[in-house]
């Protein structure tokens, strides 16, 4: 069996536009005055045709519209893309088609049309249930709008997920507890709960560098919030299945599981990444980040806006470990060894087990409750012998 078949095949579509740029966000998003959606549809269709030819005969497990703000796409654009996808691949019976949406009233008005086009899951960027924090995070929606959007989504789609950001400026442990409980009351079956991360190149990053971002929680408080998050979601029946993702068992994001279990995925759109196994070799693809050059190049020479790199066994194994250890189910030592051609460093593994960060159960290694919070350090320790070579 080819390695990717452990996890399946998905398609990621990147819509690179937002109404405004949020100060914390370092995703490839752009604000544009005019967008010719028919040209974009055409470009996406070209890419679907090209990748379809490379992956002929595969069953497609998932489609994910990410961004940017995909809920700014006209329903016809989504429809056009999904029609072409259905004409290209055989869809799995339980195909998951997710679209990321802002919980504003305008977007909620399109939910019905998206569902008719085939979208069966939405992921709503709620981020906060505090009006002041929503403004501070640069979000355009209100708490009421968010609540309405969640309700509409729940009556429209099979599955709904909401995103929240914690460890915000001046946030206390008890405020986060209240907010998380409120969020659980909406009754969605999936929650993505992210610690606020200050990224270089963002507005927050620049403010942070100038020491203007006051009240960010210290490491210990952030750790307490993370632990509390695990406790509350577990009690509510939506335990963590990944570092920041929580779901009712069975309602995990199948698309994201393809990443974490290291399946194959094609990425379409500006800045999109893909991993495709072709003739037993695994390739990493990365598309041009700027929307206009990507669009022009793709329309004239499909595939020309993409860089392709063949991954070494070392890189494949490292990626596998980086992703798989994020999951509660952990990583398989034999799969790692098969990918790399040599086993994981026994000394590094023993040290991490000794520190109580990893737990080994036969072929599987998993992070412990303290270990999941230390994953970067664990990966450095496990891959220390090879990182510099990569």
């Amino acid at each position: 069996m080819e390695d990717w078949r452990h996890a399946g095949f998905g398609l990621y579509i990147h819509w690179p536009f937002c109404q405004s740029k949020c100060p914390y966000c370092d995703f490839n998003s752009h604000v544009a005055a005019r967008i010719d959606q028919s040209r974009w549809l055409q470009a996406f269709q070209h890419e679907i045709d090209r990748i379809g030819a490379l992956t002929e005969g595969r069953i497609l497990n998932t489609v994910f519209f990410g961004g940017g703000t995909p809920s700014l796409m006209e329903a016809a654009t989504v429809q056009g893309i999904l029609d072409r996808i259905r004409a290209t691949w055989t869809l799995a019976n339980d195909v998951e088609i997710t679209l990321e949406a802002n919980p504003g009233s305008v977007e909620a008005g399109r939910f019905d049309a998206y569902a008719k086009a085939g979208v069966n899951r939405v992921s709503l960027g709620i981020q906060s249930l505090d009006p002041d924090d929503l403004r501070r995070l640069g979000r355009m929606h209100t708490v009421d709008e968010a609540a309405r959007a969640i309700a509409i989504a729940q009556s429209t789609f099979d599955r709904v997920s909401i995103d929240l950001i914690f460890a915000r400026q001046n946030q206390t442990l008890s405020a986060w507890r209240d907010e998380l409980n409120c969020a659980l009351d909406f009754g969605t079956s999936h929650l993505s709960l992210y610690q606020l991360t200050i990224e270089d190149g963002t507005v927050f990053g620049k403010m942070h560098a100038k020491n203007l971002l006051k009240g960010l929680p210290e490491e210990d408080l952030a750790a307490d919030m993370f632990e509390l998050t695990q406790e509350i979601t577990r009690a509510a029946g939506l335990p963590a299945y990944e570092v920041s993702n929580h779901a009712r068992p069975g309602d995990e994001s199948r698309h994201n599981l393809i990443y974490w279990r290291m399946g194959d995925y094609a990425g379409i759109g500006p800045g999109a990444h893909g991993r495709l196994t072709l003739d037993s070799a695994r390739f990493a693809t990365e598309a041009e980040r700027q929307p206009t050059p990507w669009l022009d190049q793709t329309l004239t020479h499909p595939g020309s806006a993409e860089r392709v790199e063949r991954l070494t066994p070392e890189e494949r194994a490292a990626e596998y470990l980086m992703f798989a250890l994020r999951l509660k189910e952990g990583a398989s030592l034999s799969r790692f060894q098969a990918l790399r051609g040599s086993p994981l460093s026994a000394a590094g593994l023993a040290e991490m087990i000794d520190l109580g960060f990893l737990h080994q159960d036969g072929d599987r290694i998993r992070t412990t409750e303290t270990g999941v919070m230390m994953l970067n350090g664990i990966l450095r320790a496990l891959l220390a012998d090879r990182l510099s070579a990569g």
Partner: protein
Amino acid sequence: MISLDRIRNFSIVAHIDHGKSTLADRLIQSTGTVAERDMQAQLLDSMDIERERGITIKANTVRIDYVARDGQAYVLNLIDTPGHVDFAYEVSRSMRAVEGSLLVVDASQGVEAQTLANVYQALDAGHEIVPVLNKIDLPAADPERVKQNIEDVIGLDASDAIPISAKTGLGIPDVLEAIVHRLPPPKGDPNAPLKAMLVDSWYDAYLGVVVMIRIIDGVVRKGDRIKMMQTGAVYGIDKLAVLKPQMQDIPELGPGEIGVFTASIKQVRDTRVGDTITHEKKPCDQPLPGFKPSVPVVFCGLFPVDANDFEALRDAIEKLALNDASFTYEMETSAALGFGFRMGFLGLLHLEVVRDRLEREYDLDLITTAPSVVFKLHMKDGEVRDLHNPADMPDLTYVDHIEEPRIKATIMVPDDYLGDILKLCQDRRGIQLNLTYAGNRAMVEYDLPLAEVVFDFYDRLKSVTKGYASFDYQISEYREDNLVKMSILVNEEPVDALSMMVHRDRAEARGRAMVEKLKDLIPRHMFKIPIQAAIGGRVIARETLSAMRKDVTAKCYGGDATRKKKLLEKQKAGKKKMRQFGKVEIPQEAFIAALKMDG
């Protein structure tokens, strides 16, 4: 040759900021020695560091032609001396090269400790002293009080003190007249064998080593074969000049004159300040008295932050050594810091100046280890060893007792801060020798261990007195005390660069402060880390750095794999700036910051 009665040689004695350099600039400017357009503030302090810190490190000189009110033309030689205790010997030689001093005192402040030390040097050299009250234009100026202060503290008649403002130029003509009429001309015999004092020397990129001399007797001419009496070296004079302040060639220099020469001398190290220069063929019979070779008293390790810069550091030190013979250096290897140099300096300021120059002029990032003094180890077998580096401390069973250098410190301070000063000196194992008052200013003399003074004493002094205290010291003697080596252990591993010699009674406090500081400076690791201070095998202070709790990327999806891998690699590369001790990584800053201790 100029007749002796038309020469006046003088120096200026002043505390930092009391306006020495500004006055020198005014004298140069008002006599037209330097054209207006070539003036830059503080002409004589030629190093950037000197100008920035407002201090003089190398002696500088300028020859001023002045037509006095009596219509006669005079040659005035000003030697601008180093103003800091680290360079006390250099100051004493400069003082011997001139006959008089201007004592410049800030009319709003009064006499400071450093001024006092230099005035004593001037009096010791037999100078005539003319008091000058500067900054008379300031609203806070109180000339009568300061005159009284000069009389009280120094015992000098200040009734004829000249009120000036070096800033505005007020009173400058009076100063020039006073130099001519109140300072004595030099003495000397032009027909006697050549006898000249080596006042200073420096390296010039074009000319090689330039030697500044004061002629006592005889005449020196270009082309002469001369001999350095201490080193015995013989040279031919290639170039003879006076400084105005640029070099101006001159055919000969006679008694009382001050000038410079070059003689194909390769290194400043080949010249000794205070040496006597005479003719090879017809030498004088006695060298000048008072020659002392320079002896470093403060030592520290200097290591490149980037180990690859070691060769660059070696080059830089060798180049600096061309111009500064007063520091010593030898290679040192530290488990913590890799390859570097153990360097000896005349004092703390000298250390800072050399380090700053290495960093700035040679663009190096350096780690400085704790400054240390030379301890004398009296071994049980009777041998006496110098200990320059605490890391080299032998097993105590072989050591009979340890001696450390003591200093006599003079501190002048407004009496409001006296209590703080006494406490500080007491805390540093000081013994009070004397306490006197002049007006509302106290003068305290303390016997202190030099080791306690090199350890951020200046910083503490400045902070407890809000900068109002002035401080000076001279080394007095070596004395036995209960001294021990304190080691620092991080995660049970000794860190040699952090070990230090301390007094047994102070070891707990010092150890506690050090481990607390390190606890803040060392980043958390994946495991908890004990940080200990120990004497021999006995732990005297301990802190535990708790383990890191959270280090995980919140978002990691399909597109993030590449980025995540780069991030992990970057974090790994970042560790190169850390020093590894067993499993613990200690950042460079920790070494530097750990040595800056309060209390």
